[in-house]
Every structure is written in C-alpha cells, then in structure tokens.
C-alpha cells in the first residue's frame, strides 16, 4: 500500500467487476497448460497411470497371481499381449497391478517423508541454538549414507512389508527436505512481515505456522515433486534385489529381478516390459516435477 497515514484522499483500489473479468479459472488453467506442453502431457500420463492403478481389477485380462497351466514362458501373442512368465502368469495383468504399489509408495512417501520433515526443519531453522545443532548432526549422519544402501539397511532391520518400505524410503528422503526447509526458514524469519507479526504480540508457534511456514512451501513442493521419480526407482531397486515388498505382491521391481534374470536369454519379454512401464512412469514424474519447478521458482522463470 502506497498510502501514507496523513493523506486524506485515498487512491481508489482498482475494482474488478465480475462481468469484466476476461479470464475464468478454467481458461487460465488452459493457458498454463498450453504454455507447458511437456508438463501437461506428463500430467495426463500420470492421471492415466493412476486410473490404471485404480481400475486394475477391471482392466486386467487375467488374475495376476494365478498360474495358467501349460502357459509358461509364452512370448507376446493375441492371447497374452505381453507374454507370460515362467510360472504361466500373464505379464500385462501383473504390470497393471504393479502400478498400484508404485503409486501407493510414491504417494505415501511424499506425505510421510515430508510432513514430519517440514515440522522438524521449521523447528530447526526457527529455534536455532542447541535444538538446531542436534537436529542438524542427526540429518548430517543420515545423509552420509547412499540412499539405496540406507534403505536396504532399514529393510533388513524392520523386515519386509509394504509399510516398512514406506517408512524406510521416508527416512531416506526426509534429510533433504529438513535441510532445505531450514535454510529457507533462516532467510524468511528475518523478513519485515515476521517482525511486524511479532510486534503485534504473536507468539512463536503462531508466527511459525501462520507466517513462516506458508512462505517456505514453494521449495518443498519443488523438492517433493522432484523426488517422486527417485522414490519409485529406489523402491523398485529394493524389490529387484528381493528385499523390498514381500514376493507374493506383483511389483515392477520384483518382476524384473529373480526369475526374470534367470530367463532373460530365453524369455526377454519378462524383463523388458515391466521396465518399460517403470521408466515411462519415472520419466513422466520427472518432467512434471521440472514443469512445477519452472512455474513455482520465479528466479528460473525469467530464463
């Protein structure tokens, strides 16, 4: 507001009449989509994958768990579009079901690995002092491990289950978010509006949650969207190594490991198709992450 306290004649604020608004929300979204064709296509792909995951039982031609007798190691055909594995299970059906685990893990990790990390980072940046010191040493030692190796270690400690994969990957993922949030908080808390809010008598928790936190969200959204792909890759690596999701659940990673490696020369379709879906999903997630970063990071938008 460019109003000084003494001025009598206030400058009238521009009034936007509803009828005069040229752009509706839908139109603006459409323009945003047109300006980012790559991001829109990726988003469409991800929505498609999500729909596949939701409707897998209706879309799959066969039961992913059932072995069809006499149909082991069939190459792709009209009957089995992507072939069958060494136990006579339809690969397409298993891939469709496999998308469920990948999306479930990606979504759960982005919530479970982010929300606590946001509060820890906020605390670390805002409180400073000893709290900060302890949290940062903890974060330092967690991020000293290569991601996959830390996840493997956790899986052996916790035991194999879907829940434990989510916990492991959340632990692997959170140090980066804690660190980023802390550094953003350090700069945000020096701003004038924080000072203003304190002058009005706001307490620590109120300032943190109402004023600091909302202004730190952009980098967090960028980080989380960028980590979707990486989370899926680590998860499928765990499954590939046979130390992730229990073996009876069809996942893209486990379809690529174990028997697929044994039969890779005679039945390459077993290992080729699941990887194709896995890579395409990760690619779509990465491209969407890039687009979100371009939109949310004004510093890069200029370029």
């Amino acid at each position, binding site marked *: 507001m460019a109003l000084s306290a003494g001025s009598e004649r206030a400058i009238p604020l521009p009034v936007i009449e509803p009828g005069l608004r040229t752009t509706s929300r839908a139109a603006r979204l459409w323009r945003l989509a047109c300006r980012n064709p790559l991001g829109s296509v990726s988003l469409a792909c991800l929505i498609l994958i999500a729909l596949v995951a939701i409707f897998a039982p209706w879309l799959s031609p066969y039961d992913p768990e059932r072995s069809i007798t006499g149909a082991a190691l069939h190459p792709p055909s009209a009957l089995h579009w992507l072939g069958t594995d060494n136990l006579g299970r339809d690969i397409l059906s298993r891939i469709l079901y496999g998308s469920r685990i990948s999306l479930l893990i990606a979504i759960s990790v982005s919530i479970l690995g982010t929300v606590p990390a946001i509060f820890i980072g906020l605390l670390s940046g805002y409180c400073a002092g000893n709290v900060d010191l302890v949290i940062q040493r903890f974060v330092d030692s967690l991020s000293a*491990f290569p991601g996959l190796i830390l996840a493997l270690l956790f899986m052996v400690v916790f035991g194999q289950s879907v829940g434990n994969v989510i916990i492991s990957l959340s632990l692997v993922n959170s140090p980066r978010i804690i660190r980023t949030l802390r550094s953003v908080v350090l700069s945000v808390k020096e701003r004038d509006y924080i000072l203003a809010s304190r002058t009005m008598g706001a307490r620590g928790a109120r300032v943190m949650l109402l004023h600091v936190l909302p202004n730190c969200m952009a980098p967090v959204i960028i980080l989380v969207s960028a980590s979707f792909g990486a989370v899926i890759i680590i998860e499928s690596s765990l499954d590939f190594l046979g130390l992730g999701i229990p073996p009876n659940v069809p996942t893209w990673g486990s379809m690529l490991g174990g028997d*697929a490696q044994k039969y890779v020369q005679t039945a390459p379709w077993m290992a080729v198709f699941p990887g194709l879906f896995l890579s395409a999903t*990760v690619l779509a997630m990465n491209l969407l992450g890039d687009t979100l970063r371009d939109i949310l990071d004004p510093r890069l938008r200029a370029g």
Partner: protein
Amino acid sequence: MSHYVIRRLLLFVPTLIGVSLAIFIIMRVIPGDPATVILGGSDAGTGGYTKQDLQHVREQLGLDRPIPVQYLLWVGGVLKLDFGTSIRYSSPVGTEILHRVPLTFELTALSLVAGLAAGLPIGMMSAAHQNTRLDYTGRVLSSVGLAVPNFWLGTLVIVALARWFDWVPPLGYATITEDPQQHIQQILPPVLVLGCGFAAFVARLSRAQVLEVLREDYVRTAFSKGLRSKTVMVRHALKNALLPVLTLSGLHVGVLLGGVVTIELIFSLPGLGRLLLDALTYRDYPLIQALVFLLAAEFLGINLLVDLAYSWLDPRIRYA
C-alpha cells in the same frame, strides 16, 4: 587455504562418528541378535540349541556387555582395521572386504570418468545452442537417462549383447592381471550402464549452470569486447559453470554407490555390492555393519575431496 582445509577435515570426524553411531544403533534395533542367527534362527528351546549355547555365543561375540562398551569396542576395532569375524564366511570381515575393493573401486571410478566425459560436452553443447535441435536431443537424452533405472538398462544391455554379439556374462571373474581381455569384456558393459545415468545427470546440470552463467554481466562484457563465442564459452562461461557441477556430482556419487549393488548382481561381478547383498540376505551382522560403514565413509570422503577441490578452484571459498 590451510585454514579452510583444516576446518573441513575437522568437520569430517564428527560426521564419521555420527555415521558409526547411527549404524550401531540401527543394528541393535534388529529383533533378536546375531547369536540366534549363528545358532540357527528360531527361539531358544525350540531350536537345536540350549540357553547355555546362546549364552556362550553371546559371550564370544561380546553381546553380553553393556551397549556403550560394545560400541567402543567396535570403534576401537575399526581404528585398528579389525572389523570382527564374518558369520557366513567365518573369516575376518576385513579380508573378505579387501578382496573385493579393487573391482568396485574400478567400477565406480571408471563410471565417474565416463559419466563426466560424456555428460559435460553434451550439457555444454545444449547450452551453447539453446532451443535448437541439438539442445532438444541433448535434453531428451538426459531426461530419459535419468528416468531409466540402471538395473533395467543393465538387463537390456545383457539381452542385446546376447542377441547381437553372442556374449553372455561369464560366471567366473577374471582380474586384469589374470586375463586382461576377459576383464575388459566383463567390466566395460557395467561401466557404460552406470556411466549412462551419471552422464544424464551431469549433462542436465551443466546445461543449467552454463545457461545461468551466460546471463551474467561479465559474459556480456566478454562478448561486447568482441571475443569469439568459443573463447567466451571456454574461458569465461565454462570455468564458472563447472564448480556447482562438481559439488552436485559429488552428491550424486551416492546414487552410483547404490547402483553398484544392482549392477554387480546383474553382471555377476564379485564386488562390494554383491558382498553387501549376500551379507544382508544371510543376516551377517558384522559384515553388514562394516560394509555399510565403509560405503558411507567412501561417500563422505569423496565429498570431502570435492569440497577441497572446490576451495582450490574458487578463491572466494578459501578466504571467506
């Protein structure tokens, strides 16, 4: 300079202690303990061993002592390069690891070099010819390279090599002194697979960095002085763009070290990654503990070297 180096080295020590503590704590959370694993898994009484046996093995492993004492004994051992005895191989963990270090070291070092050698030129070309067909090709390649998991790429390479070259990874591994030709045949495909992902990362990063530097005032000055664009690119843009690429590449080594585990499995190479995987599947606790510690230490060490190189290249860091 020396001041910065000393400070950086001093910071390395507490982080390493933190890492050793973290591993030790994680390993103690495991339900049951190594003694039950050695004796055969199930609970005392139901298995083929008695409570006395369990007590005996625990005393042998030092598990009956208080946990802080156990930690100090382990750290003391590590300082003397004594990592304890492997449960599975019943030989010293140190020698098991030492056998396999050269292969994994060769694998990661060559992948790093290959990744930088391929990624940097691609990224620079992309930036120099922004929004041309060359740039789009480079960007598509690096996006795809980042999305393809290395264990799938490795599988595809194996299928392709068998199809078109009749080459199947042999079960036995030959060191470079035993059979140089077979050694190169064995190490080249995994190096290319690991290098691919790394190159994609480097290409993308160096493109972004060069573009950022090209917007700087000193680059405009260099252009307006009438310097040829090649000179500006190499002398002014490249030098300044390289530094962040170096740091972030150091952090990406973690992905490479994780990739070693899957790639060594696919190409049946007996390196540290395979050893770790075996140790994890057999619950060989002393071996797991030592391997994870060494891998984390290697990761930290590489980043320490990167930071030191950074300070050597960029005087602003040294004197800050």
